[in-house]
């Protein structure tokens, strides 16, 4: 994907020609599009945009409303286990026998898992509950019916 124009409002990317099949080894029929090879490049691939570490990327589905504001019920999450966790990132966590998605909040050595929906309470991580930060949520995908 090649950027051909950028301003503060909009970015324009070069259109792709990959629908044209290029035969290997055979002769290409001459015609109006005979120089199409020169423009051959790959079509925009959403996988490449959303996935930084393919081997470490997994998907998860949001259930419930505790992250309303960031995620709706049913949103698809792109989770990267290769990303470092830190204050402010949204993580897929495993806590007390369940997977949950929350924003990590670190302050004065106290770790809290913050729901985005203010009607839910933050969870304070203590030595009694074992927290596993399973991966970092890098993108979310929502269907708009």
């Amino acid at each position, binding site marked *: 994907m090649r950027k051909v124009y950028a301003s503060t409002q909009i970015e324009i990317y070069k259109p792709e020609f990959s629908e044209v099949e290029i*035969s*290997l*080894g055979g002769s290409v029929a001459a015609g109006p599009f005979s120089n199409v090879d020169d423009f051959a490049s790959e079509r925009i691939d959403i996988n490449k945009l959303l996935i930084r*570490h*393919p*081997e*470490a990327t*997994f*998907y*998860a*589905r*949001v*259930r*419930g*409303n*505790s*992250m309303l504001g960031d*995620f709706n*019920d049913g949103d*698809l*999450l792109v*989770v990267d*286990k*290769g990303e470092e966790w830190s204050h402010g990132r949204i993580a*897929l966590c*495993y806590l007390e*026998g*369940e*997977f*949950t*998605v929350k924003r990590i909040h670190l302050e004065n050595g106290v770790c809290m898992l913050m*729901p985005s929906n203010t009607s*839910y309470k933050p969870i304070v991580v203590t030595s009694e509950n074992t927290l*596993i930060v*399973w991966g970092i949520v890098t993108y979310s995908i929502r269907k708009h019916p």
Partner: protein
Amino acid sequence: MPLFDCNNFYASCERVFNPSLNDKPVVVLSNNDGCVIARSNEAKKIGIEMGIPAFKVQELFRRNNVAVYSANFALYGDMSRRVMSILSGYSPLQEVYSVDECFLDLAETATPKEYGLRMKEHVGRWTGIPISVGIAPTKALAKVANRIAKKYPSQTGGCYVMDTEEKRVKALRWLSVEDVWGIGRRNAVKLQAAGVFKAVDFAEMPESWVRRNMTVTGINLQRELNGIRCIEFVEEEKSKSFSVTRTFEKEYGTWDEIKERVVTFTAMAAAKIRKQQSLCSRIQVFLQTNYFKDTEEALSRSVEVRLPFSTSSTLEIVDFVVSGLKKIYEKDLHYKRAGVTLYNFTDEKHHQPALFPEMNANPRHKGLMNAIDAINHFSSSGGIRLASQDARMFKMHQEHLSGRYTTDIRDILQVRGE
């Protein structure tokens, strides 16, 4: 030359998606929930043996609260590809030795231990799969080093480097001869009869004895244990053939039974070659009888079928397979094993059709096969099958199957937000 080996791989895969299983005994059962094919360390400790039929240890499972899983090969295969892909990034040469093991050809480094630990950490963090690393001058010694890393995780940190003569000798004194990589049961018995019990004794045996009793494979193995590289690196290529071979759960004798099995294997193999967009023009079919009690030998027959055209259509391939099968099938024998291999591939995209239509594959099958593959991909109950395959797939016993978390969008992790 390092060897990377995933620890209790199948059980570890289940744990990635169910962390509550950490520190608990986990076992994975073979197809049809028959036998134990993987155990976590905790399950090993309570005495669950590898390969034992599940029904024999039900009580042990119950008493120890063992988490029991049906084999989820879709998940294990994907996790394996992730692990192998990460490791391949460290070396231009990788030999994937099995689903959970690979050798790498690493350049000499001043700090192999740190390097090995870094790779282990990388795989662990990205995939959740724990691995052990054994680094040694040869493949056979890397196997030994890996075994030490796995056996003594707290002392080695999961990575053992065999970089001195002292360490080599010490390791071979520790290792029993039957546990040497590739030695085989028959050779182990021979060696023990000759008074050889430890790997070091085998390494020090006269070469003439080894040549006489164990052929050139034995010589290579012995040299490798002595630090001389002679087992070549096998690089992975794009699949040039696909086989589906199975041992039957019981003996089969009648034509209908054998035909049904072989047709089912053919359908599986044909689906596989369509996935990599290959067409095949040769097929091998084989049948093997059970071991005859008096001679201890099995009768094995095979036939090669040359196709007049290249195809990946299940319908066409099955026709040729059945015609080949007719040639090798004999009544009144007890068959225990059969298989189908498809080969002589051409790429679907670059296939040159023949001039005369009757020498070509039926072009209408392509759309049909695409439709069947698409339906079977989304079907959890066996999908579309040929009438000559029976409904046995529907009956597959998988009582404890976990989700196909990474290969089926309907099975991905569900995250509670309460």
